[in-house]
């Protein structure tokens, strides 16, 4: 056999095929076909392991159509680690170059340009903050916020500046590499992390504050901290601490009904559910109405599969908006630039906008005007 899937046998056989993942898998919610949910995918891998089927284009599609959102793990009664099974399967497939071309291309682009946008870009001036001391607080902006949504990063940095929170940024923002890990390009990911770590090591941070939840997870889980141990937090955790310690003063009343959308990496991966809600509850005039599917059961925005299945991504983001619309809220709030990107694409079809949490904080502080 070409693949050593036997290593996965015990994990695969833990799936009792009860199908409880049907209740949570967001991709299945769109496709309503067994081969597009966790039970189906694991059964396919099992059949491959037992040499009952081979690898076909459709097989590759099903394995790579999972957003790795981990929602299935929440409803799985036997504790199947679907994300891990798929990561390991993808790793074997990627070694044989059996991954969708778009992902191979995306990795090439990241390797060449340092970011997912495919061109070398300088960090916008407003995001440059020099390092003045060792063992300080590094804000790891990440490529999506730095180059796609610099205004989000700027809001956060301006908040920190206003309250005289000491921090600095890197001279160039690069992809954290999380996407390479998720598609199974393990060697490329390891090399990339080493390069990123090298850059981080030179400025010896004590704490890294990331704006993107995927960066938080990557830096927390996969970066070796043996040389210079550093803490990794997401921006919402810093905002909450500054608000609770009264350093950030939320003065302006915003009079808005909002729903908060939990990004998978911040929520199910890092288990940060209450922090963003706590921040929202402290902004005067904000009323939080939970989405029908929230916290552990939150949907996925579809970001990880948008390049290969744009139509699924659209439907996933649309369903989040439909949920918010049914709740009758004024705004959908999130705290991930990638989720923002995907939700923003859907927002045109709804009479509802998406906003980054830091922007709401900046508005209540009076740094930013309410639009």
């Amino acid at each position: 056999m070409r693949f050593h899937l036997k290593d996965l046998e015990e994990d695969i056989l833990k799936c009792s095929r009860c199908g409880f993942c049907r209740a949570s898998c967001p991709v299945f919610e769109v496709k309503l076909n067994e081969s597009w949910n966790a039970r189906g995918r694991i059964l396919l891998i099992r059949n491959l392991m037992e040499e009952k089927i081979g690898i076909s284009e459709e097989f590759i599609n099903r394995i790579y159509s999972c957003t790795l959102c981990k929602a299935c793990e929440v409803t799985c009664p036997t504790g199947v680690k679907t994300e891990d099974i798929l990561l390991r399967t993808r790793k074997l497939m990627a070694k044989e170059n059996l991954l969708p071309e778009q992902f191979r291309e995306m990795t090439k682009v990241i390797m060449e340009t340092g970011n997912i946008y495919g061109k070398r870009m300088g960090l916008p001036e407003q995001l440059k903050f020099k390092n003045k001391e060792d063992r300080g607080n590094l804000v790891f902006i990440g490529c999506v916020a730095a180059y796609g949504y610099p205004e989000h990063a700027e809001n956060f940095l301006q908040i920190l500046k206003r309250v005289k929170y000491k921090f600095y940024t890197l001279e160039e923002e690069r992809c954290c590499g999380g996407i390479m890990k998720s598609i199974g390009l393990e060697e490329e990911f390891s090399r990339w992390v080493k390069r990123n770590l090298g850059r981080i090591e030179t400025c010896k941070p004590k704490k890294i504050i990331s704006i993107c939840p995927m960066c938080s997870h990557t830096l927390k889980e996969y970066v070796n901290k043996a040389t210079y141990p550093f803490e990794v937090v997401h921006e919402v955790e810093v905002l909450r601490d500054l608000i609770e310690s009264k350093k950030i003063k939320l003065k302006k009343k915003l009079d808005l009904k909002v729903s908060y959308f939990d990004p998978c990496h911040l929520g199910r991966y890092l288990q940060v559910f209450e922090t963003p809600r706590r921040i929202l509850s402290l902004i005067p005039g904000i009323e939080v109405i939970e989405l029908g599917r929230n916290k552990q059961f939150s949907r996925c925005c579809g970001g990880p599969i948008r390049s290969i299945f744009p139509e699924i991504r659209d439907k996933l983001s649309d369903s989040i908006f439909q949920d918010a619309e049914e709740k009758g809220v004024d705004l959908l709030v999130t705290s991930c630039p990638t989720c923002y990107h995907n939700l923003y694409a859907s927002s045109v079809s709804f009479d509802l906008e998406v906003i980054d949490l830091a922007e709401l904080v900046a508005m209540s502080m009076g740094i930013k005007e309410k639009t």
Partner: protein
Amino acid sequence: MRKKLKQSFIDQLEGIVGSKNFSTNEIDRIVYSRDASVAEGVPEAVVWPESVDEISQLLFLANKERVPVVPRGAGPSLSGGPVPLRGGIVIDLSRMKKIISFNEKDLQIHVEAGCVITQINNFLLKQGMFFPPDPASQDVCTIGGAISTNAGGMRAVKYGVTDRWVQALKIVLPTGEKTWIGTKTRKSVSGYNLAKLIIGSEGTLAVVVEAILSVYFVPETRRMIKAFFNDFESAGQATFQIMSKGLNPSIMEFLDEYTLGAISKYTGANYCRGKAMLLIEVDGSRDEVERKLPKIEKTLKENKGFEIEVAADDEENLKLYSARKAAYPALASLSLTCDVEDATVPVSRLPEMLKSIERISKKYGVYIGTFGHVGDGNIHPNLLYDERKKNEREKVEKAINELFETAIKLGGTLTGEHGIGKAKSNFMKLEHSPESLQLMKSIKKAIDPNNILNPGKMGLM
């Protein structure tokens, strides 16, 4: 041996449902080859119809060509019911999931067969109503699947199983004819009760495509009580007395020592006391619940129950309910494979059944954790093993055979709620007389003369 599907047939099939609702791709077929049982069978085509007419045309065509058709809901089944043992077509009804109408005057809801029970309940809860049958798979199982297996659940002890809540069904016969059966009235003795015949027939007689269901008011309050016991007789006696005193609990669950140990390990809370635990819920108006609680407590005490505890509030209710819900995941975490059986006996014979399970576990050296709906006499022995090991598989098979034999000897039934499917097909003779089996076969033959609907199930043909 049936020949492979002809290309012309495949083309017609695709023409009926459209290419986006049709597949002969290996990847799609393989995932429809299994449910949660050991049964296996790969279909030749899978379709996801979106209308009753499509199903009708499809069955007409399949009947003409003598191609097996297996209807399927969410497939959480433990019996092999929706597994296409003889190939053919799987009809996945998941895309027919519209709630068609709600009649608040008659307390009835009209739904398509692919609606999930929780989806129906989410809709009903907004009206202060609910659909009482609560199979463990209610978050995924379709109403069509629940009807086809006459699904139960924890609250069946008070509210009954699915058939009590089905008023009328729209079905498609194997020949393609569509018809409504049943009634919208609360009473009817008009002709044979065809709806009851179809309910629980596991897709062997007709495809259920729509249903009109009765619903009920959400009770004002619910309270849970737990008690431990040092022996099965006392737990069984307490169960029997609570049921026979008309205290009408809405949940009456039993968990054995082994299961309690697993839950304790799994949840971190300590439930390890004595030999067994009973978990009881009463629901209704506050007055009614307050009136029943002391009577239940008294009965538990009289039967040597100890550490009896009434949940003080919703949070404590939830804690106890969650402990019970953790029973299966907790047991499943102890081994690679966990087979859940559902042999059911008269409530008065429960202590004997529970002791037999212990004996069978020792005799074959198979770990068995038992919990279940003891108020219905419906218990779930969970057999833990490693399906990769032949000797363990053989031991489990023998243990299951003896479990079935014991249940039947005690005046019980092979299955309280999971269904016969493929898994218990060979045991039908244990429970049913030759005449009764022949009657079932005659009914099948009369409705499905070419045996195209879900062939090879229920020990029929």
